[in-house]
């Protein structure tokens, strides 16, 4: 056994060029596969982060039944004790309260239905950059009496910072809601539909307006980028009374995003599959030719009395070592590159990048450094390489030494 291994080892170093070529074909396979997958998954992760943070947040907590009937009467009391206990969950950065309701906004002869979001702006800044959205005026602070209006609404009513708008609606438990507020700032949500719909108000002001003291309709969980959403979701579920609250992940709230990514991922996997096909061919081809080249030498060994099993074992060892070296080399070389692009995401230049910006997203592709990617693809390619070595083994099994030696 030891002898076989020694032979295998020496064979490898005996013909450096041949070994190098084999190692290289495995290496390039690992490199390209990991590179591509890391880019794809990084991009999906980024897309999720962007969209989720802007629209729904990763996890939302509501009063049970709110999602199906989104009315103010399904609001619940903000309990500091509960919020603190949620913040203790690992990965949770903050728990952000919101009070959301529909009202009529009016000025002069113009009246329009809008969605009022009562927010805690300091906490919201942890989710999204509000400064980037601001186009005129200032962001309010939590105790102010001024509001923030989206730009298309401001335009429709022909209002600027400092002007007043009137709101009328239905408050909590049937109380009428009415108020007059002045515009502190105007923002661009980068989404044409949202720009015609949203009005932001300090949480306390919204609660007053709606006669909903200390109540909220949403608690939004802001988490660490790298924290596992599902883990946090489970822990939250454990802490909450299931009869009174409902907890939802973004997958449930924005299923279209998940589906878009699924479709894209499908394409991505297809591409990787094709890459593997080509790669397998590369490896197979290399191994094939190696074997052909060594027919003479193998024939001699058989003639000299080496048992076929030992020969096969030797070939297997060679395969394993070469593949291992190729894989390790691939991982070694690709890791710093994906790490670099993880920290400094790839920028999408030109008009394509601009298109992304127009949607309010950064034109970046950060690479994913999930070790699972590296492990998975390394394993797959390693396996492919080992499978490829079946050819030489088969060849050896049927080899007639005399013929082999003649084929010099």
């Amino acid at each position, binding site marked *: 056994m030891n002898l076989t291994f020694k032979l295998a080892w020496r064979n490898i170093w005996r013909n450096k060029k041949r070994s190098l070529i084999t190692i290289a074909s495995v290496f390039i396979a690992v490199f*390209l596969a990991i*590179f591509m997958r890391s880019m794809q998954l990084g991009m999906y992760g980024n897309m999720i982060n962007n969209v989720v943070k802007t629209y729904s947040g990763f996890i939302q907590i509501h009063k049970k039944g709110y999602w199906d009937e989104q009315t103010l009467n399904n609001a619940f009391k903000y309990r500091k004790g509960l919020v603190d206990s949620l913040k203790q969950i690992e990965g949770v950065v903050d728990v952000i309260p919101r009070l959301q309701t529909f009202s009529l906004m009016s000025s002069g002869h113009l009246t329009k239905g809008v969605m009022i979001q009562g927010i805690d702006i300091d906490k919201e800044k942890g989710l999204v950059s509000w400064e980037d959205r601001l186009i005129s005026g200032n962001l309010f602070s939590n105790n102010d009496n001024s509001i923030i209006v989206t730009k298309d609404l401001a335009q*429709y009513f022909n209002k600027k910072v400092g002007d007043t708008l009137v709101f009328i609606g239905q408050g909590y438990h049937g109380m009428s809601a009415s108020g007059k507020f002045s515009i502190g700032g105007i923002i661009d949500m980068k989404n044409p539909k949202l720009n015609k719909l949203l009005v932001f108000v300090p949480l306390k002001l919204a609660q007053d307006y709606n006669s909903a003291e200390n109540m909220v309709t949403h608690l939004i969980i802001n988490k660490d980028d790298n924290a596992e959403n599902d883990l946090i979701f489970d822990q939250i579920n454990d802490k909450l009374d299931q009869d009174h609250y409902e907890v939802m992940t973004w997958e449930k709230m924005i299923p279209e995003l998940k589906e878009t990514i699924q479709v894209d991922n499908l*394409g991505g996997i297809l591409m990787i599959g094709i890459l593997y096909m080509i790669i397998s061919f590369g490896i197979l*081809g*290399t191994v*094939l030719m190696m074997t052909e080249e060594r027919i003479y030498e193998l024939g001699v060994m058989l003639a000299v009395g080496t048992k076929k099993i030992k020969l096969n074992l030797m070939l297997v060892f060679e395969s394993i070592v070469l593949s291992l070296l190729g894989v390790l080399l691939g991982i070694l070389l690709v890791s710093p590159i994906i790490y670099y692009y993880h920290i400094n995401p790839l920028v999408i230049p030109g008009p394509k990048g601009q298109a992304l910006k127009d*949607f309010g997203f950064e034109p970046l592709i950060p690479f994913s450094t999930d070790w699972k990617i590296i492990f998975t693809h390394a394993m797959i390619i390693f396996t492919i390489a080992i499978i490829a070595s079946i050819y030489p083994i088969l060849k050896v099994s049927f080899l007639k030494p005399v013929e082999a030696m003649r084929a010099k």
Partner: protein
Amino acid sequence: MFKIIKIAWRNIWRNKLRSSVVMISIILGLWSGLFILAMTYGLNEQRIDGAINTVLSHIQIHNPDFLNDQKINDTIINKEFVLNSIKNTDKVYKFTERLISTGMVSNAKGSYGIQLTGINPDTEKQVTEIYSKLIDGEYFTKLKRNPAVIGEKLAKKMKLKLNSKIIVTLQNTKGDLTNAAFRIEGIFKTQNTIFDETTIFVRKTDLSKIIGLTNGQIHEIAIVGKSLEDSKLIANNLKNIDKLNKIQTWSEISPELGYAQEMMSTFLIIFMGIVLMALSFGIINSMLMAVLERKKELGMLMAIGMKKRSIFIMITFETIFLTLIAAPIGLLFSYISIEYFAKHGIDLSNFASGLESLGIGAIIHTYLPVKMYFEVSLLTVLVAFISSLFPARRALKLNPAEAIKSL
């Protein structure tokens, strides 16, 4: 020179195994690259087509104020003039006029916000395909009085069936609220569930009476040209004639569609790059082996006086021949498979339930513009050629004396 080429040709047939490996790599590379491209193109085409044939059309015209808030009095300016100009514009194929009114629809179960679109069924059929997407009922052929055609999502939400009554509440030209009853004549289903949930089609003649726009005013004109690519041209022609109304192409109305196309092409480029790199590597690998394996033979050739340049050319041509044989085969396989799936479609319904909601449908028909066949083939051949240069150069480094020694 010709002799060398002949030798190169014979060489590739000498080692059938190696040659097949190289050729198969090229065929696979080409085929898979083209097929993925075709799938992606097909996917995107379907997405765009779906939207264009039901909602967007190629071009839409509105009163510029109407686009902001859909106020009922912001009708198209100089309608007769505009319609005439459209008739006389080059490349316009069909067009139709619409009245649009937003309001509420109610039945005993509840009320919801919707858009009522008043159409002329005959011209509308020439411009959109909604009439062919009915899952139940008819498209304005039977009911005499106030027929409505609604989307399946809305029907489900309000538990409406054929002949159910709905009450719409709208604002008329004076700003007063007005109600009218309609009966469901047909139910349609498009790939856009939001559209299905919020759009109700009625006859323009019925709607105009209800809202009080009885002088033939309209809110929207939708135009299709003979082909999608003509959109920009038609729009520009019209913009020169009509400076008052807002004329938009489908991509201006729905930039997300155009954007999706952009993103896809970026990825395809990256993907093709990677595939070509893998391919290139495979070729280098194989040809290098070929050189090393024939060390003795090449050494001998050099020893008997063959110039280094000739050897270089020989090896290069070996690769070229392999590519020239493999490429057409790859192209053929690609063409056949793409055409087959273009007709029969690939059924992805098991994998992607999400496709429907994205407006795509679970069956993808591949499609590849002819120029892509050329571009990809050219690229592949180029890459193969460049890949061959490295092993060819390597051959030059062989030392004849050394080579003979190993005999």
